[in-house]
C-alpha cells in the first residue's frame, strides 16, 4: 500500500470521525431523536448513548493518528463502520424519516443507504490500516495531525455550507410593486 494512500486513509478516517464525534458531543439532540424513532425503547437512554458514541469516535480518531495505537484504532474503526452500516440498514428497512443528525445538523438525510455505504467504506479503510501496519504513512504524527485538522475544517464547512452561505450572501430587500404587493 503506497504511503500516500495510507496517509490519506488515516487522515480521512480520523477527520471524518473527529468531525462526527465532536459535532455529536456538541449538538447530539437530532441524533438522539432519530435513534429514538428507530428504536422507541431507547427513550431517555438515547442521549447518553450518543455521548458515548461521540467519545468512541473521538478516541478512535486520535488512536489512528498515533502509530503505536493505529492498529487498535483500526479495530475500533471497523466496529464503528459495522455499527453505522447496521443503523443505516435498519433505518432503510424501517423507513426512518427524521434527519439523522450524524454531523450535528438538522437538515441531514434520515438513516439509510448513505450510512451503509459510509460504514462499509470505513470498514474497508480499517482493514487496510490494520493489515498495512502502524508505520506506513508518508508523514509522521505531527504531519498527520496537521492534515487531519485541515480536513476537519474542510468537512465542517462542507457540512454547514448552508449556514455559511446564509451568513455571507448579499442581503437584498424585496422589491415591492407599485401596488404594494411584494414580489
Amino acid at each position: 500500500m503506497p504511503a500516500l494512500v495510507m496517509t490519506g486513509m488515516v487522515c480521512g478516517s480520523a477527520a471524518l470521525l473527529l468531525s462526527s464525534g465532536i459535532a455529536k458531543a456538541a449538538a447530539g439532540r437530532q441524533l438522539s431523536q432519530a435513534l429514538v424513532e428507530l428504536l422507541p425503547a431507547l427513550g431517555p437512554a438515547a442521549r447518553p448513548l450518543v455521548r458515548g458514541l461521540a467519545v468512541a469516535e473521538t478516541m478512535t480518531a486520535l488512536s489512528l493518528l498515533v502509530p503505536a495505537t493505529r492498529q487498535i484504532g483500526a479495530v475500533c474503526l471497523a466496529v464503528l463502520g459495522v455499527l453505522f452500516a447496521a443503523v443505516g440498514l435498519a433505518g432503510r428497512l424501517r423507513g426512518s424519516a427524521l434527519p439523522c443528525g450524524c454531523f450535528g445538523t438538522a437538515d441531514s438525510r434520515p438513516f439509510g443507504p448513505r450510512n451503509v455505504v459510509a460504514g462499509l467504506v470505513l470498514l474497508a479503510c480499517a482493514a487496510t490500516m490494520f493489515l498495512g501496519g502502524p508505520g506506513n504513512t508518508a508523514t509522521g504524527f505531527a504531519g498527520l495531525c496537521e492534515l487531519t485538522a485541515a480536513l476537519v475544517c474542510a468537512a465542517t464547512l462542507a457540512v454547514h455550507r448552508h449556514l455559511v452561505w446564509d451568513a455571507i450572501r448579499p442581503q437584498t430587500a424585496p422589491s415591492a410593486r407599485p401596488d404594494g404587493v411584494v414580489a
Partner: protein
Amino acid sequence: MNYVFGIALLVVAAAVVVLFAMFGELYARIGGAGTRDASGGVRLLDEARIGQTPDTWPASLDGFVDADLRVLLVLSTACGSCETIAQQVDEDPTLAGADEFGVLVSTADPLRATAFLDQHEGLKGLPYHVDVGGDWVTGELGVTTSPTALVFKSGRLVSALLFSNISVLRNAVFPIKEPV
C-alpha cells in the same frame, strides 16, 4: 515542537467543529434565514401559478373575485406550523372581520378541519373554506405548501408568499400609508 503544533491545530479544528455545531443547532431552532431575511420571514413560493385566475371559487370566498386586493391564507391540518399562524390570527384583534383576508384550510379529514376551526375562533371571523384533499387550491393554483399567503388582485393571483408571522405578512402586502 512539531508535535505540539500538530496537537494545537487539532484542538483548534475541534473548536471549529464545536462552534459550527452549536451555531447550526441554534440557527435551526430560531428559524434560520427567515429571521435574517430583510422581509422578516416572507419568501416567495415558486410552485404557485402566478397570473392564474381560478375558473371557480368556493362560495365563501366569492368576495375575492372582484376585490381590489385580497389575501388568502392557506393553512392545513397536516401542518404543525399552521397552528402558530392560527394562534396569531386569534390573538390579533385587528384581523377579526378584516375584509382583506380569507382563510383556506386544506385537510385530509373534514372532521379535523372542523376541530381546527373550532379551536381557533379568529379564523371563523374571516371568510373561510375547507378544502378537502386540497383539491381546489392545488387544482386551480398549484399550491401544496403551508403556511402560504396567496395575494389576489381582482381575482387574479399576483403573488404567493411563504410566511411565519401574520403581522410581518400584513406589512409586506399592505403598505403602511404615511399621513399627508
